[in-house]
């Protein structure tokens, strides 16, 4: 599910950049054409409205799976501010442990929960941009049409920011990449529940 999501998200981001270029929000910001997907805005829109199905269906399966199996509760919660501070302090002193990669530290938990929330908001603001009339009750949450566009843009920026940090850190701790590709070591549920 992670890799389907990764592929869909990258397609969404790169095609979204081409769509953004057609009518920019910030005059100083144009995305270089070579990094975008789609021949012209019409091609980029086709990609965007294709990848959205993969992203939404996969994301929905992931959320159902995460809640139904208790994975979210087990691996992502609880998050205590003092743990976050402790993790940041450890990281500053280069004392962050990576022995047990099946167990997320507090900053990881915070970022993962955060990015899941941002993606959900991104889907909602996407609907508001796509269907400001049919879903006008939803679109009104964002103020105006341009308000929804701006939220959709900021969501993209946050996801791209997460992606940069996420990939950089994974590369720094190479054994996590093996786990990401193979699904990771089998986690004994009993031992995990003690945490």
């Amino acid at each position, binding site marked *: 599910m992670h890799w389907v999501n990764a592929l869909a998200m990258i397609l969404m981001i790169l095609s979204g950049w081409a769509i953004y270029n057609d009518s920019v929000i910030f005059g100083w910001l144009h995305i270089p054409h070579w990094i975008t997907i789609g021949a012209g805005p019409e091609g980029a829109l*086709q990609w965007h409205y294709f990848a959205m199905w993969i992203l939404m269906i996969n994301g929905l399966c992931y959320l159902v799976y995460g809640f139904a199996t208790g994975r979210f509760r087990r691996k992502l919660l609880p998050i205590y501010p003092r743990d976050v501070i402790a993790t940041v302090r450890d990281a500053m002193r280069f004392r962050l442990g990576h022995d047990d990669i099946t167990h997320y530290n507090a900053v990881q938990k915070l970022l993962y929960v955060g990015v899941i929330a941002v993606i959900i908001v991104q889907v909602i603001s996407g609907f508001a941009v796509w269907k400001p*009339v*049919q879903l006008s009750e939803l679109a009104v949450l964002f103020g105006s049409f341009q308000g929804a566009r701006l939220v959709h843009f900021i969501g993209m920026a946050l996801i791209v920011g997460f992606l940069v940090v996420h990939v950089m850190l994974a590369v720094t701790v190479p054994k996590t990449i093996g786990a990401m590709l193979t699904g990771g070591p089998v986690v004994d549920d009993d031992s995990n529940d003690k945490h």
Partner: protein
Amino acid sequence: MHKAPSRSLFRPKNGVDQSVLQEHKALVDDINRRKILRGAVSLGALTMLTGCDVTRSDAVQSVLKRVSQFNDRVQAALFRPDHLAPTFSEAEVVKPPRFNAYYDIEDIVPIDVAKWKLELAGKIENKKSWTAQEIYALPEQEWIIRHVCVEGWDYIGQWSGVNFRLFLERIGADLTAKYVSFKCADDYYGSIDMATALHPQTILATKYAREPITDPFGFPLRLRTATKLGFKNPKWITAIEVTNEYRGGYWEDRGFNWFAGI
């Protein structure tokens, strides 16, 4: 569409012997798996080498086109026939409206209204053509609605003219037909679904901000619907056809989504 194979004298009754395949199932699966891996790796490499060229291959284009057609059906299902688009106050109206066409505003060819007429075709009982004066005499309604362009910009506009459903009823159009298609003086063309044509906020606009529409914005007659993107609102209309045939449109035939509902 896949049809079941028809009965044929030449097709063996029991089909091809599958036992060889069964015996070597593991090997076949393995080869397939390797192919997929190789395919995935080549696709990745190709993307790196050629930038976005892989996205232009015919197979990819055909998948994207099918998904776009599927999205047409999804949008038709999402469409709420009686749900009104948000309306705005006169103070928010942008004057003049924002220009959009497939060419620049300098290249507009103004229409001689004395010679202009609206032709009707297709599943319509009374196909008599209309002059501008006859259209102006029809009852008028006004909507202050948002225009959303597929590019991403928008503005609030104040449009008036005859309600399109009323006009279609007046000319005896078959309201059960699938599409209404338009031809324009500048060779632009387009088509919309009947449900959108019958929406309360779809009008044949003749005025903007209570003044006759000016040349760049479709004088003397244009479509204005609150439930579609800007390019689904043809300007300088010269002919309307009610039909069950899919007619596409200028931008749609170049790859933009046909339904383009908002």
